[in-house]
């Protein structure tokens, strides 16, 4: 990290970039899927149009719902925004970096999930209950993969915060650990963002949904918050993978930044390829995938103990 004057505003530049560009990520995924299917696909800016339209709309609330339901999307978006402040990007540190920030990061995302789940339960609908049940089970299994994966990298880099150890330079001597952790984090990325093979965002049948079925009853600005938070979550978790996988040339911060941007779009494109070439797993088989993610992280840790 050079002492150039503009590096101090880089963290804030990252936040601004993420806020503006995040809705492009779901768009990239659907575009890749469209190409695979031989279709032209929706315009790249479609998520922006959707969010803008929803923000202009009014809302309808279910008869059974209370303030818990109305609070869900707001808390969810606030939590993801907070998580964004903890993530480094393209060689520049996060807005907030301190020892143990990986724990805060994991638990802030847990808060976002809990808010969504409790809002879904508040409707009393059996479909939303089903989605909530699956989400809480999957996230309980996924949590160790995220934490262990980050701890493995941290151990290899000798401690510190996300901003100091999420960096290929720091862990370049540990290619095996890094590779395994990238694998674990990609499983987390797919699960957290409700992508195939864990969940199918494009399915039309409530019975087979996880995340989508939990937000069926939200409308208007609440739904806009949910869509925006989902896009930001793709960004935030993608940034973790990019931090480990994409080189960050220290000499030119702008090149590092551009590489990271390309990387985060690349992760979305890979997700699109996965979605095009795989079917969603049976619900009963999903825990195996998530356990596999934890196992990858665990092996990385054991390697790191040498």
């Amino acid at each position: 990290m050079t002492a150039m004057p503009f590096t101090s505003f880089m963290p804030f530049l990252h936040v601004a970039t993420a806020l503006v560009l995040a809705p492009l990520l779901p768009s990239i995924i659907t575009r890749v899927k469209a190409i695979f299917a031989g279709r032209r696909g929706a315009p790249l800016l479609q998520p922006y149009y959707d969010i803008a339209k929803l923000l202009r709309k009014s809302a309808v609330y279910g008869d059974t719902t209370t303030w818990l339901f109305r609070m869900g999307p707001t808390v969810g978006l606030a939590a993801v925004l907070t998580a964004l402040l903890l993530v480094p990007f393209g060689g520049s540190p996060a807005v907030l970096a301190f020892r143990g920030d990986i724990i805060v990061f994991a638990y802030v995302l847990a808060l976002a999930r809990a808010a969504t789940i409790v809002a879904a339960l508040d409707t009393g609908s059996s479909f939303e209950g089903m989605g909530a049940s699956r989400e809480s089970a999957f996230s309980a299994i996924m949590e160790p993969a995220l934490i262990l994966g980050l701890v493995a990298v941290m151990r290899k880099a000798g401690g510190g915060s996300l901003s100091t150890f999420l960096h290929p330079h720091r862990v370049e001597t540990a290619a095996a650990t890094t590779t395994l952790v990238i694998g674990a984090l990609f499983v987390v990325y797919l699960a957290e963002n409700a992508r195939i093979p864990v969940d199918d965002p494009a399915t039309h049948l409530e019975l087979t949904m996880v995340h989508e079925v939990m937000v069926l009853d939200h409308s208007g600005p609440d739904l806009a918050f949910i869509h925006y938070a989902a896009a930001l979550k793709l960004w935030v978790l993608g940034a973790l993978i990019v931090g480990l996988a994409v080189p960050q040339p220290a000499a030119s911060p702008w090149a590092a930044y551009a590489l990271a941007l390309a990387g985060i779009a690349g992760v979305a494109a890979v997700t699109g390829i996965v979605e095009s070439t795989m079917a969603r797993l049976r619900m009963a088989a999903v825990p195996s995938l998530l356990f596999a993610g934890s196992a990858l992280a665990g092996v990385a840790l054991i390697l790191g103990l040498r």
Partner: protein
Amino acid sequence: MAAMALAGSLLILAAVLAVVRPVARLRLAGSLDPAAMMAIAACAVGSAGAAYALATGADEAWRVAWAIPGGALALHVDPLAAVFLLPVLVLGGLAIPYGHEYWAGTASEDRHEAWAWFYLFLLSMALVILAANAVLFLIAWESMSVAAFFLVNHEDHDPTVRQAAWTFLIAAHLGTAFLLAMFTILGGGAPGTGAETLDFAQLRGATAGGPAAAAVVLLALAGFGTKAGLVPGHVWLPAAHPAAPSHVSAVLSGAMLKTGIYGLLRVLTLLPVLPSWTGWLLISSGLLSGLFGIVFAIAQRDLKRLLADSSIENLGVIVLGVGIGVVGVQHDAPMVAALGFSGALLHVLNHALFKGLLFLGAGSVLHATGERNLDVLGGLLKRMPWTGGLFLIGAAAIAALPPLNGFASEFLLYSAALEGVGGGDRRMAVAMLAAILGLALIGGLVAATYLRAALAFTGEPRSEAAAHAHESGPAMRTVMLILAAACVVIGLVPMLMIRALEPAVAQLARADVAVATVGAAGVLTRVTAVAAILVCFTVLLSVLRARLLAGRSVRRGPVWSTAYLAPAPSMQYSGASFVQPLTGLLSRVLGQQREGGVPPAYFPSAQRFAIETPGLFREYVFVPAFRGVRWIALNLRWMQHGRIQLYLVNIAATLLLLLVWKLGFHG
């Protein structure tokens, strides 16, 4: 010390006044009688004294000789004692107004005795912590168990309550048996150098190391672990907590379990050198209890049983923290030690607050509906907005969600373990990795457990009882509000708490931890910044949302159920369905018993489906063990012939044999 003496005298007076009928029937404020007012005052004075002692880092002692061999009326208030006095007195004091309103509707004469036992229970818990002499400690310990027995057994017309109380009494006494042996070894020391009185000051350092220290650590973990509800000594706990009246459950879980932790910590400070495996033992024990507790909690449909099983988990997490601290001390890593002990002690206080709140919330639900079964509750948030909202705050706190207090202590424990992993020492790193893996696994399951508990409040009522629920009275609401407010405040300013705990942590870490504490407080300040940002974002987004929706026609409509517009409450996901993906994965461990199931034919008919989760250890370890004891006892019955002359001969023969042994082999 003066505050403690005043508080103790007031509690004794309150216990006496509670059974003097003419006085106990007086009502001073709301449903409070003079004895209750006195006991509340005692708790207020006592907790103020404890807080002052903690703030000043004072170490006061008071001693009067006593005729009992080895005994002395020795009391002390040091920082460690002050930390543990706080949950006892604060939660105990808050439980009194709650309990009086809880019982107000169903006035009956024997409540007076129950209150007398309650005040004695608080007194003996305080005395356990204040005692600086082993004999006094054991007397207080036993009277605490006896008072708790009578409180658990309060609704003794119910056979399950009698069974629970009986199990509790047996477990308490078995635990004490370990402690008797432990104090004997501590007091014995090397031959000839035995302490004259069993004052802690004299016991400190009397046991050098080697097998004696090993035995002390093992016996302390067994004896105190039984009281703290650590696996496998936890069997009494899941039955006793639901059986007790709710305000008693709150104090049992929030305060009494902690006396077990206190005892363990106190004994650890008495040993000059701990066996090298102590930290590993404590970490393993904590992980075992943490995982078992939460795995069983997730499968419970009885709300209070769920909370009780979750207490096993929380106490496991506390012991895990103590273990991290001990490993830190033994590997000469002061930062790890300081963070581990701080996390454990902060979790002691936090657990008292949120588990107290949750038990009192469960009590309000029970009071309003007569139901503890989560699968027939539902929709209570609309009927009991205060209880519901406050319970959910408690649930979020115990699930360690930021920005509440549970996250602060969990964060400290994680930080301690991360510190240990980041450092060089490989053996310490392995222990810390186990701790991190355990905490991560437990964390996810805790969230699922408390989301299941939240099902009592969301959706629509699943029974008539839940549909006709009513909000509880002002005293119960106020008490829960105070506890919830404390959860929020500690969550927002955890660095103040860790500074306050510093003297107690220093006692445990056997070193000056000022540097480590300042460092940890600095990190916690960053955590607070994140929490503040989170709150700001939430407020800003709420304002934005309100602005956007203002002036638009916000409507209410039926909930989407795949266009099926006549949903019945029984169609909602029940708690058992909610956790099915997880209980299915854990079925091997849980050993759930199912009855009924898939309908046999194409056309619906009356169906029954039941699912029970038995206590694993109870079924497979303790019941067979006690059957064996019974078998032995039955076969030794011929000795119990009832002839006093022969008993005297037996006694004389035993004494003679002991004399021969002492003279012939030992002297």
